[in-house]
């Protein structure tokens, strides 16, 4: 994959020994023993991702310091369960995520339902440390484990008519109280990207974070991560990916179109109608530490700004 960064690292520097070292580090960290390189499933043990398949993507800015995992695990918006960011940790544990399959359909050559194991067996998992900025004005830095969405889409072979991608969260009212009671939002949760956004190498499908499988409240077993957009775009627990000719109507956009646009790119100079987006509270930063100045495209402009050339970002917010 080719990702331009501020500190450009030549491809020769991304060498197998370094990857090997990283793997060793992870394995040591988790107290695992080295496992064979060709395991059929990436889920070798029940709760831990087989780290033999992970390498750290050294083409990204690694100076980012990850937010303590405990904070990331206990501050999640999961409206299917609750409107309270502290309660989702406990409530989400009732979710049933095994077995899991993902339907890929619409404008593709090969529409199919894939078992998650089969998807993962064809992917090399990477660790990517991304900034994550919520539309509510807080942010964190998360070491995700996953693979580029484009790698999966290519397997289904998108047709030239595919202009947009629609993602749908699982409908599981028996474990999700607000789906059952039809509270506030229309469920199942739907998100969408333009095809070029979806095919961009930064756009990640995550199955883990902090070197382990995703906790349920953080979107297990499979979630989207689009680091230059507000967090609500990064849909959790995906069961369906449809390639479409037209933009899908996304959940928050439908709920409050004047407040949440389809693009939802992080942009400090386009305020939410009710609050500023100029700064953010980085989780883990202490008392009397000022809020962080929010960056255009959450700091990923160098890689993705070209996607929005000649677009009025105030209009397409």
């Amino acid at each position, binding site marked *: 994959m080719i990702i331009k960064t501020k500190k450009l690292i030549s491809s020769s520097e991304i060498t197998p020994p370094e990857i090997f070292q990283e793997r060793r580090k992870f394995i040591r960290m988790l107290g695992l023993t080295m496992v064979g390189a060709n395991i059929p499933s990436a889920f070798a043990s029940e709760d831990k991702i087989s780290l033999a398949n992970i390498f750290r993507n050294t083409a990204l800015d690694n100076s980012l310091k990850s937010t303590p995992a405990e904070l990331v695990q206990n*501050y999640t918006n999961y409206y299917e369960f609750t*409107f309270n960011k*502290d309660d989702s940790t406990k409530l989400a544990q009732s979710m049933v995520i095994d077995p899991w399959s993902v339907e890929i359909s619409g404008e593709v050559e090969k529409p199919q339902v894939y078992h998650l194991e089969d998807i993962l067996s064809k992917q090399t998992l990477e660790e990517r440390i991304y900034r994550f900025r919520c539309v509510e004005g*807080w942010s964190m830095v998360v070491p995700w484990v996953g693979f580029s969405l484009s790698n999966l889409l290519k397997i289904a072979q998108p047709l030239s008519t595919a202009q947009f991608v629609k993602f749908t969260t699982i409908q599981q009212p028996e474990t999700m109280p607000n789906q059952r009671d039809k509270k506030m939002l229309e469920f199942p949760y739907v998100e969408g990207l333009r095809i070029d956004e979806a095919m961009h190498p930064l756009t990640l499908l995550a199955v883990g974070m902090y070197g382990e499988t995703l906790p349920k409240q953080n979107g297990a077993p499979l979630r989207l991560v689009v680091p230059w957009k507000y967090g609500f775009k990064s849909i959790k627990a995906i069961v369906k990916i449809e390639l479409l000719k037209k933009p899908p109507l996304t959940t928050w956009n439908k709920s409050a179109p004047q407040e949440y646009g389809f693009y939802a790119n992080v942009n400090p100079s386009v305020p939410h109608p*009710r609050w500023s*987006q100029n*700064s953010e509270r980085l989780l883990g930063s202490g008392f*009397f*530490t000022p*809020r962080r100045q929010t960056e255009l495209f959450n700091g990923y402009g160098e890689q993705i700004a070209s996607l929005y050339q000649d677009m009025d970002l105030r209009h397409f917010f």
Partner: protein
Amino acid sequence: MNGLIKSLLALTPVFCSLPLLFLGFDIASDNLGANPIQALHIRLGDWSLRFLCITLAITPIQAITRWRGMTECRQLFGLYTFFYASLHVLVYLFVDHNFMWSLIITDIIESPYIWLGVLAYIIVFLLGLTSSKFAMKTLGKNWKKLHRWIYLASVASVIHYFWQLKGNLTEPLVYAIIIVLLLSFRLLAS
């Protein structure tokens, strides 16, 4: 009985300070969750709104019970409203922004819900400044006029609360109902 009530009333400042004490414990024991600054900020906002409701409730309670023993408490509750609201504002300015005025000014300009918070605080501030008996005498008839602005402050605070939320609206709704009830009582009584 009267003696008991009187000694209970004497303890009011202790009760009014308890929220601050609990907050201090939660800060010391790191019990404010993943976003402690916001939690602190919100809790102080909650307590200023609660004390505002208590302050507004005194007159209706006295009218219903035909008991005048709480007039002095009203001033005290009003001052605690001012106290918690001031801490709420200070946490915003200092703890969350460390007085970085460029961030603060942009934030206030671009966040309409904060405008109402600012309005409510200016009113509460003025009422706090003029709460003494001396100010009451000096201002004469104008004192009552000025202190009626508390109703505007209460409405502004509740909208300030409502307007910033994305999800659950139950809690501000509770305050809205209380304030509508207290307001309508005053309007009907006058």
